[in-house]
Every structure is written in structure tokens, then in C-alpha cells.
């Protein structure tokens, strides 16, 4: 093993450790001279290993700490390791690994830098970026923000490369053949005479060697996996019903539970009568928990039925009862006192906005995440240990929360991260685990499987933010010359972090995300964020702030371009001040053979570009105005991601992102009446179904020098491109989502 003195100056260093019958390779974390909280549980000079590769007699296991909610994360992470390790993807197993602070997500902290601004005690003591340190401090083994690929792109390949070279060194020691004469292939070291030594047989020797460091990563021209179409590791299981998800997990002796929560999100339980429920077949208990009741039975359906038989009296919602007051809180927030940020103030907006000023107001509703798998968790509480099985993006938070609820030490809380049937941000929350824990504490030693009904899941989702924008602008000489955009919304970071007992000091960059940093050089441009208080609790929804702001910014820009008499795509190109963004716009122009917003009678086209999560993504939407309503015919999408790691998954994620965005922009909203969500199931919240799905052409551009994820960037530009197309086809300007309040879709 490497000594600590040798490694102290490195960014990260590959280490190894002997395990039963083999070796593990990974990244060392170590105690350093400054106070790095990541290592606070280590004594000076001690080190701990975060394994990414484990090799023993049973084979090669790749550790993929970013959770898989359907985006192919396990597959991509495994491919990055395998690219350098020289194993075939059908030779390996993947394991999401245990929750561990060392699996911190460096890419997400860069995105979150603004809301975690310095100023709080512990962070001021830290060298380096405050937000980065904060992320280490709370140990965010988080999957989110399209960060899986950027976070792992170098780290995972380096782990694979060092493991490969160390295995060659082991083969050299065993056979006396110089390392330079050894090659590797398909999980084996190959000797000059063709003899193949399996990695599994070299593992024990490798464990005794100093891991080989600073191995040059392979040139992209040598890549076998990255950039090539690959068969996803989970594709056979997911096509044969043999993929188990969290909701399918079974622990011996478990009982089936559900919850009946105050229909008004986060409201209290005042009184209840469970007499009828307790007399129903299979019902074992009705137990009070925070905000409602846990119903325990011997079958999920029996628990659901019993929940319906309970009479309960509930407290009021701790937010406005009706939508009129939600919108009023937003419209009342455009004040100096509620200003959260003004990250953009170019030229002289006040001076420019005189004379014929164009003004408009835009709205975006609350939206549910509604992944198709309802949330669930199994929890068993014992006197001195807790075990959890659940699909989650935040295993470290779950450990901490269960420790707080039960009094059991966090390191005695075992979290098994299971495959997720979608998330879109839903599984960045852990209420279901907290509730299962509260139930399990009342029946110690029994594993409690808590499954939400669809209705409980949708009513008690923490939705996407509601938001409102006000735009003022000016055009002169056929050009857009001024845009003043104010955006009011509640702070998603304050709401989400608040549920984790964390403060989010400073401005929330999500309030202006997808708007303040767009690549258009309008001479007078100002973007101001306003924080609305007292609204319904909210959470991160696929593309977060940009999901509403991409619409606001592009819709306002479209109105100004129209007033200027310019072409929506050509004027965006003229204003564009970023080469990568320009190439993305040029790509969709070429793909769609762009020739103006009205290609023929009855058809309309719109275009939008949003820069979010480090990615410029542009979309052109074409619609036909039929006698029965608007039909979306084709969407052309281009995105600049630096490197497309897996072209198949890339296409699937971009197409899915476009469909997700269009379906919600057209058909979905969450509204509240008397503090209760009006939408409980997919009959009133349909998303998009197959009959509405357009042709979707995609192109990934690889001009940047970094690598970006693609889960979220296709979402923000879809709604404004659709609104632009509908305007071109019908003359109707849509300023509020969902659009089906104003036009019919076929």
C-alpha cells in the first residue's frame, strides 16, 4: 500500500486493499493538514479506501455509487470503469455500494455553488470552494443535477486504469515476465506466449502490491465502449419482468403497510377512528405517525382498503388554501424587499425601456414528479441497528434521519439502495423512509414494507415550483435591444434542504436558473429573481428552476423578436455570443431545414435554446393546426455535451426529456382546493401518451472540452419551442402552462 506521505499532495489517489480472497481498488481519502470534513472521522495519518473495483474468486464487481432511476447510471458508470480495466460488460457485476461520505458528488457541488454561499462558520474555515466543501461536509452521495457522468468521467476511468496496471504487475511478479510485455483483455492478463491469467487468480497477489499510480488514460481513439452503442446491462431484465425494483423487495417476515396522511400536504392529524379498519381481514395495526397514520396488514391491497375505512380529522394546510392566493403571493413578490438575486444587469435597462415598451406576464404551475413506480421502503428497527431497503437518490441523508428518529448510531443504519422505477427528482425526498421508520419503531424486529398508493404518492408529492415572470422589452430597427425579466418563485433549495434540517443561506440560483446566464447578447439585459414565501412545499423536478425559466426567457424573447419583425431562429443566431450555443442553433436549423416559422399553410414552427446544467440544448418544434386541434409533428433537438458516452442511452434520454417536457407543458398541473391537491392519479394528470408523441430527431455535439450529463437539459427548451410553433400556426400567444387550458391537442 502507498504511504500517506507520498499521497498527501494529490487530488485523488488510487489505493487498494486486501479483501477476502481478493483485492479492492478505489480512491483513497486521507487526513490532510487543513480541516477537510470529508476525513473528519479519520485520525491523522489514517486513510480509508472508497472501492470502485472488487476482484475475488467470484469475479469482478464494479461499484457504481450513483443511483439508477432509469437513466442508465449503473450501466454508464460500469462502462467507464470497464473502458480502462479491460473487462467485458457481460463478465462483471455491478453493485451500488454502501452509503459512504467518500462517494461525494463533485459535479453537483459546482452547480449548487450559489445557494450554498460562504458565510456560515464551518465553511469559512475551509480551503477551496465553499460549496464544494459544504457538499463534502454533508457527504452528498447524491444522484441528481445530471451529474453522474461529469462526476465519474475521470475518477472511474482512473480507478479502472490503476487496477489494470496493478494486475499486470501482479502477473509480472508471478511469472517473471516484464510488465511491458504484458497485455490485458477480457478480464485476463495475457503473456507473450498467449497464456491468459484471469484477474480473479491475480487478485490475491495484487492486494500485496502498491497500486500503480498516474496511469495515462487511453486516447479517445482507443475507446471500446465510450461513444459506441452498448447494450444496457439491465435491458434483458427490464424486458422480461425479472428486474426487481424497490416496490418488489421482499424481506422474510415482513408486513405490508401503507399511510393515510393529511390530504393537505404536511398538515397535522387531529383525531381518528380506526374501529372499522381494525376489523377488516388481515389488518394488524393502525399506528399514528407524523402527519397521519400507518396502516399495517398482511397484504398491500388490504392495507389500502383499510386506509379508506378510517375516519380522520385533519388540520389545515400550512399554505394558501386556493390557487388564487398562490398566484397572488407570486404577483406580490415583485418587490425590492423580496429580491433574491440580480445576477445579470447589462447595459442600462431603465434608460432603454422608454417609449414603446413591450410587456407580458407568464405562468408555470406546480407539477408532480409521478414516476410510475410509487414510492416504497422496507425498514426494520432493532434495539441497536436499523436496516433499510429502498430506491433512493440520497442514502446518506436517510442514514442521518433514521439515526435522529431512532437514536441508533448512523453507522448502524444499513441502507440497501434498490433499482428505481423513475424519479425525476421524486426520490431526492425521503418522507417514505421516515414514515416507515416511525411505523417500524412501534413494532421492533419486524420488517415493515411501506407502499404508497398512487393517490397518496401524487397528493403528497413535493411538486415542481409554481412560478411567475414579468418581462419588459424593447425593439429598435428590427432588432431586440432590451429585455428586463423578473422571475418570482419559492426557493426550492430552502424547501428541500429545510426538510433535511439544513439551511440554504444566500440567494437560490434556481430562481433564475435557465434565464440569467443565457448566451444572447441583448445590449440591455437584466434578470432579477424574487423569492416568494409561504407557498406549498416544493422539490427539485427534472431541470429544477430551468424547467419554468427556460419557458419564460424564450417566450419573452419570442415576443420581442416577433415585434421586431425578425425570424426567431435568425435573430437568436444574431444575438448569440457563445460558439457552442451557436453550433447547437445551427444544428437544429440544418436538421429541420429551417425556413422561417410558417413552412406551409396550417403549419407552424418554434425554436428555443436553453443553457442549463452546463449544456446548450436547442429544439425546433413543428405543429399542424388541424380541425380537431394542434398536432405536434416533429421535434428536432441538438445538445452540446462534450462527449457522448453512450449514444443509445443519449438518444433515449433526450427523446424522453422532450416527451416529459412537452407532456407536462401541454397537459399537466397540480392545483390546490382547500389546501388539497386536485390531481390524485393519472386520469387527471396524464403526461403524454403514445398517440400524442411526435417524431423526435436528435443530435449530440461534442465540441466542448468537458463532459456533461443529458438527463435534464432537453426539458427547458421544449415548452417554449412548442408555444412558438403554436403562435406561428394559429396566432395565439401562450403565456401560461399547461397549454391545454387555451388550445386543444390531438
Amino acid at each position, binding site marked *: 500500500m502507498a504511504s500517506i506521505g507520498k499521497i498527501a499532495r494529490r487530488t485523488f489517489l488510487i489505493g487498494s486493499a486486501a479483501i477476502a480472497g481478493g483485492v479492492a481498488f478505489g480512491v483513497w481519502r486521507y487526513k490532510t493538514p487543513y480541516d477537510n470534513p470529508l476525513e473528519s472521522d479519520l485520525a491523522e495519518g489514517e486513510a480509508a479506501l472508497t472501492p470502485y473495483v472488487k476482484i475475488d474468486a467470484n469475479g469482478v464487481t464494479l461499484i457504481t455509487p450513483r443511483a439508477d432511476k432509469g437513466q442508465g447510471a449503473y450501466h454508464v458508470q460500469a462502462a467507464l470503469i470497464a473502458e480502462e480495466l479491460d473487462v467485458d460488460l457481460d463478465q462483471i457485476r455491478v453493485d451500488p455500494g454502501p452509503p459512504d461520505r467518500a462517494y461525494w458528488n463533485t459535479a453537483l457541488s459546482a452547480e449548487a455553488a450559489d445557494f450554498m454561499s460562504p458565510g456560515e462558520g464551518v465553511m469559512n474555515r475551509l480551503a477551496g470552494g465553499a460549496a464544494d466543501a459544504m457538499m463534502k461536509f454533508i457527504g452528498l452521495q447524491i444522484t441528481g443535477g445530471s451529474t453522474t457522468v461529469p462526476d465519474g468521467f475521470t475518477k472511474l476511468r482512473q480507478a479502472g486504469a490503476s487496477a489494470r496496471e496493478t494486475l499486470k504487475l501482479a502477473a509480472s511478479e508471478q511469472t517473471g515476465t516484464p510488465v511491458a510485455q504484458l497485455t490485458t483483455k477480457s478480464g485476463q492478463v495475457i503473456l507473450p506466449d498467449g497464456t491468459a491469467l484471469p484477474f480473479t487468480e491475480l487478485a490475491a497477489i495484487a492486494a500485496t502490491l502498491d497500486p500503480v499510480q498516474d496511469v495515462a488514460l487511453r486516447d479517445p481513439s482507443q475507446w471500446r465502449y465510450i461513444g459506441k452503442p452498448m447494450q444496457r446491462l439491465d435491458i434483458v431484465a427490464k424486458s422480461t419482468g425479472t428486474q426487481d425494483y424497490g416496490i418488489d423487495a421482499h424481506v422474510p417476515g415482513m408486513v405490508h403497510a401503507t399511510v393515510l396522511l393529511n390530504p393537505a400536504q404536511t398538515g397535522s392529524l387531529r383525531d381518528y377512528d380506526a374501529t372499522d379498519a381494525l376489523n377488516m381481514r388481515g389488518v394488524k395495526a393502525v399506528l399514528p405517525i407524523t402527519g397521519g397514520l400507518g396502516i399495517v396488514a398482511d397484504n398491500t*391491497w388490504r392495507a389500502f382498503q383499510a386506509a379508506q375505512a378510517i375516519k380522520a380529522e385533519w388540520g389545515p394546510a400550512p399554505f394558501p388554501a386556493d390557487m388564487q392566493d398562490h398566484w397572488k403571493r407570486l404577483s406580490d413578490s415583485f418587490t425590492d424587499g423580496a429580491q433574491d438575486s440580480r445576477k445579470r444587469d447589462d447595459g442600462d435597462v431603465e434608460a432603454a425601456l422608454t417609449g414603446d415598451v413591450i410587456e407580458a406576464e407568464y405562468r408555470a404551475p406546480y407539477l408532480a414528479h409521478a414516476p*410510475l413506480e410509487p414510492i416504497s421502503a422496507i425498514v426494520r428497527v432493532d434495539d441497536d441497528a436499523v436496516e433499510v431497503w429502498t430506491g433512493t437518490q440520497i442514502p446518506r441523508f436517510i442514514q442521518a434521519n433514521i439515526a435522529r428518529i431512532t437514536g441508533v448510531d448512523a453507522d448502524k443504519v444499513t441502507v440497501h439502495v434498490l433499482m428505481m422505477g423513475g424519479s425525476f427528482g421524486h426520490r431526492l425526498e425521503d418522507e417514505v423512509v421516515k414514515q416507515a421508520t416511525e411505523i417500524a419503531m412501534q413494532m421492533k424486529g419486524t420488517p415493515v414494507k411501506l407502499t404508497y398508493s398512487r393517490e397518496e404518492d401524487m397528493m403528497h408529492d413535493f411538486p415542481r415550483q409554481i412560478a411567475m415572470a414579468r418581462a419588459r422589452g424593447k425593439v429598435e430597427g428590427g432588432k431586440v435591444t432590451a429585455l428586463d425579466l423578473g422571475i418570482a418563485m419559492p426557493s426550492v433549495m430552502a424547501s428541500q434542504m429545510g426538510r433535511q434540517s439544513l439551511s440554504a443561506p444566500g440567494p437560490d440560483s434556481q430562481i433564475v436558473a435557465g434565464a440569467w446566464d443565457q448566451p444572447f447578447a441583448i445590449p440591455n439585459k437584466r434578470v432579477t429573481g424574487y423569492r416568494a414565501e409561504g407557498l406549498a412545499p416544493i422539490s427539485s423536478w427534472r431541470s429544477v428552476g430551468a424547467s419554468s425559466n427556460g419557458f419564460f426567457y424564450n417566450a419573452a424573447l419570442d415576443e420581442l423578436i416577433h415585434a421586431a419583425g425578425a425570424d426567431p431562429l435568425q435573430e437568436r443566431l444574431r444575438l448569440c455570443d457563445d460558439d457552442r450555443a451557436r453550433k447547437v442553433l445551427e444544428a437544429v436549423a440544418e436538421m429541420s431545414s429551417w425556413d422561417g416559422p410558417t413552412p406551409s399553410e396550417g403549419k407552424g414552427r418554434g425554436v428555443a435554446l436553453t443553457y442549463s446544467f452546463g449544456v446548450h440544448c436547442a429544439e425546433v418544434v413543428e405543429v399542424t393546426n388541424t380541425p380537431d386541434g394542434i398536432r405536434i409533428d416533429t421535434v428536432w433537438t441538438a445538445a452540446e455535451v462534450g462527449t457522448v458516452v453512450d449514444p443509445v442511452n443519449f438518444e433515449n434520454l433526450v427523446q424522453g426529456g422532450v416527451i416529459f417536457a412537452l407532456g407536462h407543458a401541454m397537459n399537466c398541473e397540480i392545483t390546490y382546493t382547500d389546501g388539497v391537491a386536485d390531481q390524485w392519479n393519472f386520469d387527471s394528470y*396524464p403526461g403524454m401518451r403514445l398517440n400524442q408523441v411526435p*417524431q423526435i430527431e436528435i443530435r449530440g455535439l461534442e465540441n466542448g472540452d468537458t463532459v456533461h450529463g443529458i438527463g435534464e437539459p432537453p426539458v427547458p427548451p421544449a415548452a417554449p419551442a412548442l408555444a412558438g410553433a403554436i403562435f406561428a400556426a394559429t396566432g395565439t400567444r401562450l403565456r401560461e402552462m399547461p397549454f391545454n387550458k387555451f388550445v386543444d391537442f390531438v
Partner: protein
Amino acid sequence: MELTVNGHKHEVDVEDDMPLLWVLRDELKISGVKYGCGIAQCGACTVHIDGEAVRSCQVAAADVWGAVTTIEGLGTPDALHAVQAAWIEHQVAQCGYCQSGQIMQAASLLAENPAPSDADIDDAMSGNLCRCGTYSRIRAAVKTAAKNLQEA
């Protein structure tokens, strides 16, 4: 009561009105069939009864009128049904949670209509929700499966 599922007879002791979905999942531990909505709005629970696609969340246990086939009985990783093979070829799944239901619906469609038009596919498959938005690949996979079944 007695149920035949994937060729095996099972004796179950459940309420007459327990939906087939929950008999399969919680009593028989057959988990390829999924719960998504409980009100026939998502199609994740689609199974075949005597070859016909039905929403198992809407079929009471006492009303099951024939042999039940779930995704596990349609084909296995070692012996794929043509629809499953097409789903793998096109790498349809993202999260995959809806795909059991999508595949069972598509298999039923192709059994009735070996050469469906685009409109036929839209009509038959629009009751099956996919929140990840894999619809473009679903369309392509149904066409590939139809072609392969016709050539078989």
C-alpha cells in the same frame, strides 16, 4: 379459489374482490406485474387472460375467467418472446417499470393483428403510460416484432 398462472395451478385464499394484481404480487409473489395507478390509467399491471390483454388491477379474483399469463410466462431471458426480443434489440427501457405492461399489451395486439398500422399501434398502446418517454422506441419495437413474427 383456484387460479392458473403461467401454466401452474395455484390455490389462493383471498377475498372475492381482491384485484388479480395483488393476488399475483402479494399472494403468489409474481412481481413482474406492476402496480402503477390502480384505476386502469397506466397499464403497468397488464396481463393476459386466455391471451387477451387485461388490466389486472380491474379484475376481481373471483372473476378471473381463464388462464393467466404474466410477463414471466410470456418468455424468459433464455427463451425470449418475439416482442421481448424486439424490446431488447431497440433498447426500449429506461427505468423499465412500465415495460412489462407495454410488452404484454404489444404481444396481445400482434396476436390479434399481425400487421398493425401506425394508427393501430397508437390505438392499442395509448393506454400504457411511460413516464420516462420511451414511446419512440416502443413504436419501433412493435414494428420489428411484427415483422419478425410474420417471417417466423
